[in-house]
């Protein structure tokens, strides 16, 4: 079918969803092989995918899905049992379909025909030699295209007697006559009004007329039959090839008479035979229906499915470009900043209506905050999909290594910001691998330890205190602390007599170049270690914690921010201006001690910190935002490390740390170097978020010429 781009896009997004559903039901089937609802969902998904692919013209995908569907049909009818092998095979089939869909989405060919044939053969092997029943044959290509037209004319006599209620099926004999007339030339059309009742008994929505038609055509019997496709089963329709009679020459008068009469008169049948045939025909229709492979069982099943479908209420979702949501977030924040300004302006206002105004502004603040929160929730997704992927991965890995596992997930509905999910997926994947590769023992090993042969992997997510926690827990052998100790020694990280806490030992896991497993699985590969996991998590403001106990198992606990744009910041005041210092760059805060300051030259000052002298960066001088000069109220020094330089920031006051959303300033103010943006704090006041790299650049280029950094001084490029 030739379709438009929009339909294609719809197809891709629907297919993605269907493949996911199929995969989920397969995974779920593994733990409960009898689950009718899972089998149904699996079947439905593949079934819908097959039709969809066929509609948009991806026939290879459709063909393959069709075969898989046949296999699933056997599963559904109980002819095939759910085994691990079958599930593995079906998961693989799902992957193959996904592969094909991926390819076509990039405008590539679905798949190499040879590969497809091989894949199809695999499915057929599962189906067995007689796997494909007649009803499961490949759909016929469009008839007209393949049928050789018959050269000779044929004559058919067609008797059409419809049931009285035909109109209630939205059908009209006229349409059938029309279709028929297009196949050839009507030699005779004889309406039969013998059943037409008296006016009193006439019901205008019932059909009383029947017809007898003789048609001269080049088409085959089957083509004629096709015309009656929708009505042949529950109406009396006969098609008789009377070509021979016509060749012999036909008695024109006969055509004028009613069919029954004609047949009887010609001595072809007796009146009784006719009535009999009529009766038989009727029964035949019924038999056809019954024969149409409708078993009571199937019927009941179909009813059950429908019942189930009725109760399953699917959430309606729409796809929105993330950018659109982000722009809403930005607008909300801008409104907040604007409101904060309005609020400040009115603070000095004492005129009429002052109370009402400040109340109204306060109210708007709350509404805006609510609005922002809600918009941010739009970006939040549940972890369900991610967990399902892990479940699949864990299962595949365990299978490869001949390990037995059971996956338990909890807190699937915990929601996380889309970006946080994206960034934490890789680290999580690595941890799952770790559990299978290094945690779960082989069934034999486990039994020897007195554990059940099947290992348990648990994924759990929950929200606590504005953070999302994800735990990945196995009941395997635990982390080999002795092994880590040995390796650390080998690598010269520690001295032989050095006493180390468990925590310190575990920390080595995050050091590059430590691997305690001799085997390397296909997925985990070599080289990527826990060091990468920690780095990646830190990038989005997450942390990782490990608990392990020998032969009891290991738990990785990830702590992630709710929203990636959220940032922990130290809240400080300098000359009544509120600043936020991103916490990840803060080394610590020290009480300001005049005695530790060492002046070098007129402007620059150094501060003694952990045995070194670090430069002191004075915000009132660095930032050109019209702050009054320092008046000696400094009470503390915030020590920051940008990765390049370490320096101190004298501040007047250190307040509670804040979780903030950075809002770029550009749209509101001119871009200010050294300031990343502004944010509205809980009390409605605006605070400036420092861009420490920017601060560093201004500071070290313009003001500070001394070399007191932990690295050699770098030249800063101009421009």
């Amino acid at each position, binding site marked *: 079918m030739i379709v438009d781009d929009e339909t294609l896009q719809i197809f891709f997004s629907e297919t993605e969803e269907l493949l996911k559903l199929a995969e989920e039901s397969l995974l779920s089937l593994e733990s409960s092989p009898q689950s009718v609802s899972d089998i149904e969902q699996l079947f439905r998904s593949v079934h819908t995918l097959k039709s969809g692919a066929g509609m948009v013209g991806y026939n290879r995908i459709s063909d393959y899905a069709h075969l898989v569907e046949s296999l699933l049909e056997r599963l559904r009818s109980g002819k095939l049992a759910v085994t691990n092998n079958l599930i593995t095979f079906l998961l693989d089939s799902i992957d193959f379909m996904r592969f094909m869909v991926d390819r076509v989405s990039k405008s590539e060919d679905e798949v190499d025909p040879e590969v497809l044939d091989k894949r199809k053969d695999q499915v057929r092997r599962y189906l067995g030699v007689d796997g494909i029943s007649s009803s499961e044959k490949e759909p016929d290509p469009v008839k007209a295209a393949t049928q050789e037209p018959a050269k000779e004319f044929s004559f058919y006599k067609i008797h059409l007697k419809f049931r009285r209620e035909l109109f209630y099926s939205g059908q*009209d004999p006229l349409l059938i006559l029309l279709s028929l007339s297009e196949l050839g030339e009507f030699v005779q059309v004889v309406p039969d009004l013998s059943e037409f009742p008296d006016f009193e008994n006439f019901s205008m929505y019932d059909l009383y007329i029947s017809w007898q038609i003789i048609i001269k055509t080049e088409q085959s019997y089957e083509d004629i039959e096709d015309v009656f496709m929708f009505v042949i089963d529950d109406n009396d329709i006969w098609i008789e090839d009377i070509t021979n009679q016509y060749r012999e020459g036909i008695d024109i008068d006969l055509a004028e008479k009613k069919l029954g009469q004609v047949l009887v008169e010609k001595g072809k049948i007796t009146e009784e035979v006719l009535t009999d045939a009529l009766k038989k025909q009727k029964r035949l229709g019924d038999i056809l229906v019954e024969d149409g492979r409708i078993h009571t069982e199937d019927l009941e099943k179909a009813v059950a499915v429908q019942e189930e479908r009725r109760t399953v209420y699917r959430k309606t979702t729409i796809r929105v470009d993330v950018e659109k949501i982000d722009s809403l977030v930005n607008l909300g924040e801008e409104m907040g900043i604007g409101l904060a300004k309005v609020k400040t302006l009115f603070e000095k206002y004492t005129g009429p209506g002052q109370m009402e105004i400040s109340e109204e502004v306060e109210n708007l603040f709350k509404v805006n905050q609510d609005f922002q929160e809600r918009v941010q929730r739009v970006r939040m997704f549940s972890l369900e999909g991610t967990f399902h992927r892990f479940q699949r991965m864990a299962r595949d890995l365990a299978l490869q290594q001949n390990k037995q596992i059971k996956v338990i997930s909890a807190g699937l509905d915990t929601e996380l910001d889309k970006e946080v999910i994206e960034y934490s997926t890789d680290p999580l994947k690595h941890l799952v691998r770790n559990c299978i590769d290094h945690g779960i023992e082989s069934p034999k090993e486990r039994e020897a330890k007195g554990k059940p042969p099947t290992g348990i992997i648990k994924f759990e997510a929950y929200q606590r205190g504005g953070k999302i926690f994800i735990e990945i827990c196995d009941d395997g052998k635990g982390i080999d602390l002795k092994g880590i100790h040995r390796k650390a020694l080998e690598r010269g990280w520690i001295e032989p007599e050095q006493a180390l806490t468990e925590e310190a030992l575990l920390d080595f896991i995050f050091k590059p170049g430590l691997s305690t497993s001799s085997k390397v699985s296909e997925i985990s590969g070599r080289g990527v270690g826990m060091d990468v996991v920690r780095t990646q998590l830190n990038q989005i403001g997450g942390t990782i914690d490990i608990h392990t106990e020998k032969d009891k198992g290991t738990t990785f606990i990830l702590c992630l921010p709710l929203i990636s744009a959220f940032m922990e910041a130290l809240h400080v005041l300098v000359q009544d201006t509120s600043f936020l210092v991103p916490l990840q760059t803060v080394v610590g805060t020290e009480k300001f001690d005049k005695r530790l300051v060492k002046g070098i030259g007129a402007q620059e000052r150094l501060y003694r910190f952990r045995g070194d002298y670090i430069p002191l960066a004075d915000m009132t001088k660095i930032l050109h935002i019209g702050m009054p000069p320092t008046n000696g109220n400094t009470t503390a020094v915030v020590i920051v490390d940008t990765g390049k330089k370490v320096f101190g920031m004298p501040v007047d006051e250190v307040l509670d740390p804040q979780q903030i959303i950075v809002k770029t300033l550009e749209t509101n103010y001119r871009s200010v170097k050294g300031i990343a943006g502004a944010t509205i704090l809980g009390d409605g006041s605006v605070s400036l978020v420092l861009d420490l790299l920017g601060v560093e650049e201004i500071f070290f280029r313009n003001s500070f010429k001394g070399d007191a950094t932990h690295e050699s001084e770098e030249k800063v490029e101009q421009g």
Partner: protein
Amino acid sequence: MSAKNFSVKQDEQGIYHFEGELSIHALDHLKDFLDKSLKGGQEIAISLAKVRFIDTAALQLLIAFKKRFEPEVKLKISEVSSEVENILSLCGLKTILV
């Protein structure tokens, strides 16, 4: 279609002009019209020149009235559109109706 895209107008000569689609969805309308116009014992003439489509149900109703009132009261189909002409010859009801 459930909307009645069918209407009747009478001209100076008393001929009723049917217009639109004379289908099963318009049967109530058609029956009302026939009831009213034939009960008075008057002959009526109907033009189907502006009828684009007529279905079996509508044809049946016309036949039913014709059978009921003729030959005493005449129901005359005076003219037909080419579409109706085609339909009538397709189903062989022309001689019965016209």
